């Protein structure tokens, strides 16, 4: 598809919901290695709740309003680190897409830039700290580049997804500085960051969605 409409966004949230339901146990065990095993639970809860409310709200609300509802719902239902950061991301994306009827490449770039900035501000992590931010930044950068050169949405998101995959791989060599993983120090080296994995999942599934 060329652009994600409000009705598509509702389906995208459904996709995310099933994605995190499927990945629940994987994320539990990933977070369990150097964390507290809750990530699979919070993410599946957050996206189940978000999918439900955006479906209930309906396409008439428009892109920005739907994202805002999704973000506010997540903040309420999954107030863990990742839950609140993801919620903040969607709330900022909502602000950034105010007035937009659809998400084309330009709006997607604005979406992910705002998402990244929100997470950076709220979490105060730096690049290289082995967090979600380490995949959000390349996603935003890839989409900005694509928007600058007028790439169609599906292609732009595919490039962003590839960038996120590489960035996720790169988190393996980083040393965790935040959250529960920070306690594990050297043991985090070699492991991909759990939050970054969620970021990659989000954009990959958005890219696949746009490509379908």
């Amino acid at each position: 598809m060329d652009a994600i409409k409000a009705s598509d966004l509702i389906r995208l949230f459904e996709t995310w919901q099933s994605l995190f339901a499927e990945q629940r146990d994987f994320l539990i065990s990933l977070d369990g290695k150097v964390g507290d095993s809750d990530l699979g639970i919070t993410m599946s809860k957050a996206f189940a709740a978000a999918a439900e409310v955006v479906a209930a709200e309906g396409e008439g609300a428009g892109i920005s309003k739907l994202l805002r509802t999704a973000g506010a719902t997540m903040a309420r239902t999954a107030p863990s680190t990742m839950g609140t950061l993801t919620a903040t991301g969607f709330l900022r994306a909502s602000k950034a897409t105010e007035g937009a009827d659809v998400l084309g490449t330009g709006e997607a770039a604005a979406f992910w830039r705002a998402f990244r900035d929100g997470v950076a501000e709220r979490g105060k992590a730096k690049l290289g700290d082995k967090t979600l931010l380490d995949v959000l930044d390349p996603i935003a950068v890839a989409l900005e580049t694509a928007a600058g050169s007028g790439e169609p949405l599906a292609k732009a998101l595919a490039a962003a997804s590839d960038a996120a995959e590489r960035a996720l791989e790169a988190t393996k060599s980083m040393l965790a500085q935040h959250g529960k993983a920070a306690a594990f120090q050297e043991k985090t080296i070699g492991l991909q960051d759990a939050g970054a994995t969620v970021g990659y999942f989000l954009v990959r599934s958005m890219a696949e969605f746009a490509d379908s």
Partner: protein
Amino acid sequence: MKKFLNDPVNFVDEMLEGIYGAHKELTYVADDKRCMVTAKPKAGKVGIATGGGSGHLPLFLGYVGDGMLDGAAVGGVFQSPSAEQMYQVTKQIDQGAGVLFIYGNYSGDIINFDMAAELADLDGIQVKQVVGNDDVASSVVGEEHKRRGVAGIFFVYKAAGAAAAEGLSLDEVTRIADKARSRTRTMGVALSSCVVPEIGHATFSIGEDEMEIGMGIHGEPGISRKKLAPADKVIDEMMERIFAETDYKQDDNVAVLVNGLGGTPLEELYILFRRVAQLLDQRGVKAKHVWVGEFATSMEMAGASVSVLHLDEELDRLVAAPANTPFFKHCILR
């Protein structure tokens, strides 16, 4: 998983129903049981709010009551409550004198309390924050800001709660809370894992003859895993870490908290305290106030922690002040 529960999804809410049923001095706002406040607000007093994940009873909500806290936002098991919930508690307990947040140093809680402080600020409520970071095992000296908050937060609640009850200002209560925080050190040791109800199996595995010194209250890794040693040796190793970064002088007073993580019998906690007292004695340090029991748990985790608060005259007075909460009572009857 061997637990008394119904649907694990309802674990926290059913627990809260039980708590409200048993303790009429607690109530909630915003039609949300997880926004707990005292039923007896005291006009003009600085409000103190806390919050954090469930699974640590009596932490956090158990200290809401006379002489301690005014409200607590209650999260899911080992999950931060939401910023919205913290904000609702804050609005309710503000009596015009401002609100102090006291909570543990965990990223989920920080992110949400920060958001809640912003929301309260928009309403013109003055908010200060003191973040407990007493767990010596969780980071080195010089990096104390990275340390986790564990059972020692009890002393921060106690001192700040007494100060607020005395009618001190938000700045004063904050100063005292921060002083108690900075003078508290905790070391813990775990013998077995807990089970998060919705997960249903042990958070981590540990050998039948092993202990982990310094493990966190969510199963975060500690300093060393080794064969379970005799109780005295365990305490010697833990206290050595505490002594290494404190400057207790002959005749100084401390308050001691020997805390059970949940599965360890009270008998054993007293055996541990016995050794703590011996070591303090050897240094001429006086354990002026002593509490032994469960103050900050990890559900069924077996293990214990020792927290020491280095008293000065002010903290001595405040720690000994009366308190009456569902889970902590300190009273003089005659």
